[in-house]
């Protein structure tokens, strides 16, 4: 559906994107992850046609973004980092304006705008001036404008930044609704990793202008090859620690209250149980922790 091939972007002498290529299929919900300044927004702006790439090619459903910008732009919905709203318009006026701007057929506009207002929970505020809305509601208006033209691809640039915790949950639920009920293809840029694992199926991790990983989130979790085993014991912690040190597959042992967190290359729970019985440590709990996306991220980007 969307293909980036060998895209390079320079800002003056600064290399913002270094030869990136990837492909996104219809129906994918992709998290676009990376530290600040890694090239996320630049990539999104190139896909949406806001910038042209210095080199390389972006095609969407077979159309080249720089050669056929108008066709591509009418099929994409985009929410920039700050919602692009005109404060002097009401929510309804603004969404009608965007629908017209995106060249929707005139007879469908009113119905679609009403529908989008319903989906994004803006019904009670539809006749409010945007200048009078809170940040969370403005963000909803931003999301509403990005879907008003029924886009095949929805690109959201950090949609939950700067919102309070309740608003964050609301916006995340809204995005989930869009992905699950409306079956849209979504690229979501964020640096909140829990958000990515909650909403998305796949993730692209970008760092210093290069793609460092692109896979399903479960597969990415396995990338760190670490097993993280947490044990709680009652006594003899030093004896047990000495015994554990002799195991070659252990990479790190961290102490915690009444126990250890053990990082190992393989699942050595059985060994640990055996050693703690030998050491008479009074093992009362052992569990294998799932690798978090944070750990993967730190490993790849840190």
């Amino acid at each position, binding site marked *: 559906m969307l293909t980036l091939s060998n895209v390079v972007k320079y800002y003056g002498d600064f290399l913002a994107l270094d030869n990136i290529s990837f492909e996104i299929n219809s129906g994918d919900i992709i998290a676009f992850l990376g530290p600040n300044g890694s090239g996320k927004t630049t990539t999104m702006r190139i896909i949406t046609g806001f910038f042209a790439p210095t080199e390389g090619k972006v095609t969407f459903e077979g159309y080249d973004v720089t050669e056929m910008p108008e066709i591509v732009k009418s099929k994409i919905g985009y929410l*920039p980092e700050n919602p692009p*709203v005109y404060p002097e318009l009401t929510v309804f006026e603004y969404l009608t304006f965007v629908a017209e701007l995106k060249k929707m057929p005139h007879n469908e506009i009113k119905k679609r705008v009403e529908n989008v207002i319903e989906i994004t929970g803006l019904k009670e505020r539809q006749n409010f001036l945007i200048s009078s809305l809170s940040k969370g509601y403005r963000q909803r208006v931003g999301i509403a404008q990005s879907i008003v033209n029924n886009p095949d691809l929805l690109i959201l640039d950090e949609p939950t930044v700067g919102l309070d915790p309740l608003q964050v949950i609301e916006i995340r639920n809204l995005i989930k609704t869009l992905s699950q009920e409306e079956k849209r293809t979504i690229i979501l840029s964020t640096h909140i990793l829990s958000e990515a694992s909650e909403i998305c199926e796949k993730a692209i991790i970008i760092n210093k202008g290069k793609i460092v990983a692109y896979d399903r989130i479960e597969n990415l979790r396995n990338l760190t090859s670490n097993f993280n085993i947490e044990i709680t014991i009652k006594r003899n912690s030093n004896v047990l620690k000495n015994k554990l040190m002799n195991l070659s597959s252990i990479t790190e042992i961290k102490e915690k209250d009444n126990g250890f967190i053990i990082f190992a290359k393989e699942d050595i729970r059985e060994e640990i149980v055996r050693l703690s019985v030998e050491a008479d440590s009074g093992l009362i709990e052992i569990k294998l922790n799932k690798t978090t996306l944070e750990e993967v991220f730190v490993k790849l980007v840190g």
Partner: protein
Amino acid sequence: MFAIYKKELKTYFTSMLGYLTMGFFLLLSILFFNGYFLGLRNTNDFSGFFSDLNTALLFIMPILCVRILAEDKKLSTYELLLTSPVSSFEIVFAKYLAVLTFVSTGIVMLIFYPVLISFFVYVDFRIVLSNILGIFLTAAFFLSIGVFASAITDSYVLSGIISFGIFILLFILSSVIKSIDQNWFVFLKEFSFIYHYEKFVSGLIELKNIFYFFAGITLWLFLAKSLIEVKVWKS
């Protein structure tokens, strides 16, 4: 393109900026009318009245123009516009047409004064219309410069200073070269907007003078459109 035009027009007719500038312009027109026609003078010569208002417009228009594209850059609606299926020329032209429509509303209202005077003395409406056409074309010309200035930066102040600077520079240059008499340099006069505007003041509507303003408008709007495109390709 029509969507942007409609939205911009609404902004002018419903915003404080629109009301204040229009109010100020109409107030000036009343004051000038008072100065030129009321009292004991029995005149039907409108050229001074219209020329003064035309000069006043040069000071009002930069205020209207600063927001045109600079505001979008500030509000990040610039990203909305540039990621929508409209060309950069459509964006520039729609915004230009909207501000021109707004200013023209004010100019058209000036016809009220000659109509009022015509109840008392004979008024040659051909000259009046020629004057109004002259003001309209000058305003259209300067608004295109304002759009260009607004495309340069996202700062209102800077965009205002740039357009005002170009206005004043053109005004001074035009006044100077208009009075050149040496044979070799007479052609320079053709570059002076005042030289062309004065033809309309005297009631002379020539294609050449209309063409001058259209060429100027096309040039500045083309430059504004190119500035937007340069940013897409070069930034």
